[in-house]
């Protein structure tokens, strides 16, 4: 029994952390709100160079041949910086699903349930999971733009005129649970950033002659956020482990992870906004970039209520 990451896993996390600190400061996220693609300029190519994007692709196909437990912390890091990229869609879902050399270097995007596909305009390949699951070329598809509250998340409805490859149930299942794990990890990262940035603010911000962080109302809100993240993270890590070892309960574990991480990040967003007051409510201040990402990802691929019902089925109906 050992509930901890290996030195290698932590080192990989640290490397990605450092890369993102350099390639994805808040200015990059803000820029993605208004640039042509909604994406970062260089973070994606640097991640590709490091091999991260093909981490789950077998070595034979040019990937790193790693597993979910090796990459869950990387997804958390991309959440922490609010990386504006189809990172989960490509790295955790698309690339290993296609598992070709092209896949590791190209860009795949995915949707699950939702008819709208993020970043479809800059993807090479579009995967749809849901009622009809398939893999299609972007070139065979007609796109229509829709607007997410998170402007960096470019959404498109997709009409495919080509003959997309159908996916079988096992492929869909693997893809769906990996993606859900990835968003859970990103939500934990987003939550941690929101907490850290709020702590910084309430220590610096003075009202009534003292830092507002000295008021119990602020302290207790942020303590609650810290608690929620403390207990959401292990559920996410366990889910990654369970997918890696094909635990029979892996899907329930991912559902638990998504429910807990969505709730924790939503709480973090709410309290961050309230503790920042009018400052956080200002568009010019970066806080809302993280908050809106939380709103989008908390609802994506099944919200907390939906995943809790899956958990209920597992424990009550079997």
């Amino acid at each position, binding site marked *: 029994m050992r509930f901890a990451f290996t030195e290698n896993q932590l080192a990989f996390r640290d490397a990605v952390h450092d890369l993102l600190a350099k390639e994805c400061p808040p200015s990059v996220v803000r820029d993605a709100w208004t640039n042509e693609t909604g994406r970062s300029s260089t973070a994606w190519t640097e991640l590709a160079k490091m091999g991260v994007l093909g981490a789950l692709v077998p070595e034979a196909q040019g990937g790193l041949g790693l597993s979910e437990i090796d990459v869950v912390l990387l997804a958390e890091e991309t959440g922490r910086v609010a990386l504006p990229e189809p990172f989960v869609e490509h790295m955790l879902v698309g690339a290993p699903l296609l598992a070709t050399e092209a896949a590791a270097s190209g860009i795949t995007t995915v949707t699950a349930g939702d008819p709208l596909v993020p970043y479809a305009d800059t993807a090479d390949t579009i995967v749809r999971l849901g009622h009809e699951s398939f893999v299609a070329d972007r070139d065979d598809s007609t796109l229509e733009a829709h607007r997410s509250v998170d402007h960096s998340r470019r959404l498109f409805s997709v009409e495919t005129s080509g003959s997309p490859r159908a996916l079988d149930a096992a492929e869909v299942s693997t893809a769906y649970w990996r993606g859900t794990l990835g968003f859970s990890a990103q939500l934990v990262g987003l939550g941690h950033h929101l907490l850290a940035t709020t702590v910084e603010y309430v220590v610096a911000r003075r009202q009534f002659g003292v830092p507002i962080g000295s008021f119990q109302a602020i302290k207790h809100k942020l303590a609650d956020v810290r608690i929620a993240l403390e207990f959401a993270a292990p559920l996410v890590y366990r889910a990654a482990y369970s997918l890696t070892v094909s635990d029979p309960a892996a899907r329930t574990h991912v559902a638990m992870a998504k429910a807990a991480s969505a709730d924790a990040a939503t709480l973090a967003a709410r309290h961050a906004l309230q503790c920042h007051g009018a400052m956080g409510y*200002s568009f010019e201040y970066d806080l809302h970039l993280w908050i809106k990402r939380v709103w989008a990802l908390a609802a994506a691929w099944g919200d907390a209520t939906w995943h809790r019902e899956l958990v209920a089925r597992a424990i009550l109906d079997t």
Partner: protein
Amino acid sequence: MDLTWSADEQAFRAEARAWLETNVPPAGLASGDTREGFARHLEWERALFDARWAVVSWPQAYGGRDASLWEWLIFEEEYSRAGAPQRVTQNGIFLLAPTLFEFGTPGQRDRFLPTMASGEETWCQGWSEPDAGSDLAAISSRAVRDELAGGWRLSGQKTWTTRGAFCTHLFGLYRTDSDAERHRGLTYFLVPLDTPGVTVRGFGRLDGDEGFADVFCDDVFVPDDLVLGEVDQGWKVAMATTGSERGLTLRSPGRFLATTSRLVELARERGAADPLVRQRIAQGQIDAEAYQLQTLATVTKLSAGEHPGAESSLTKVFWSELDVQLHETALGLAGHDAELEDSPWMKGWQFALSGPIYAGTNEIQRNVIAERVLGLPRK
């Protein structure tokens, strides 16, 4: 207890409803927090004014109908029910005007109330400063006496000023006695924003609309007749306004009843079968009606000549959290559509999130409730 409306009140309601049904723009207007939308809203305000619906509770001389508090409540209910546009003049009409009626000179009332009612002049509130948000008494913008010119010279920065970039006038607090601490030594000024030395810079609110502004004053001359109330008594004068802001005027129960109705409609469209959603919607309806009933109780007291007290803090916390809940429930119903920016619920959700922050954060309000209503010690 009598929860029925008189024949006169029913007639008043019918008249308001009929006019609103005919005149409310069916497709709504662009956001009043944009320059373009603000202009459209002013046209609507003008139509309201011309039909004498802009300021129903004011005297007829200023464009009102001398409406009773009950009629005013009825009008607000009908206004929300009709889905009529947000009042971009509300900071003037609902916050400044009550103060003008109470503290203004006859000259000030005659000068400012008619143009405020018609929307010719629009007012923003100059309270907050970068270092004076929750701690309003920390205001450091100052006004220096210019005896020769018969007035004051204002300097300093106001910020988070709602729709400041589009308004013509600002009412604000400036420090006239620099030796006095905290809430002493402040004075309430009426400032035309086209006065030399004023710089206004609009900036975005949470949803990106330019609903906020910085208002910088650099040696701005304001003559004595633009002081509202007594010099150095601005805090007392302003608190009367703050009372209105938290209390009856700004957040009519009709607004939340209307939001609840839209939520019920949304749920019916989606089947309304999920017991979880049913619980949340029922709670919304219960709370919206509770707010309405509590308002009826308050108006009964006010009509009997009682004054509202710190209880307005109870109201502010309640409606602001109700508004958040209603929108949260609606977004939960929307599923993955929830993240779409175009949905009216997403826009409303972002607006609702300002409720627990502005007009005194809910944390401050809870302190007020604990200290002034319950009598707990300050320290």
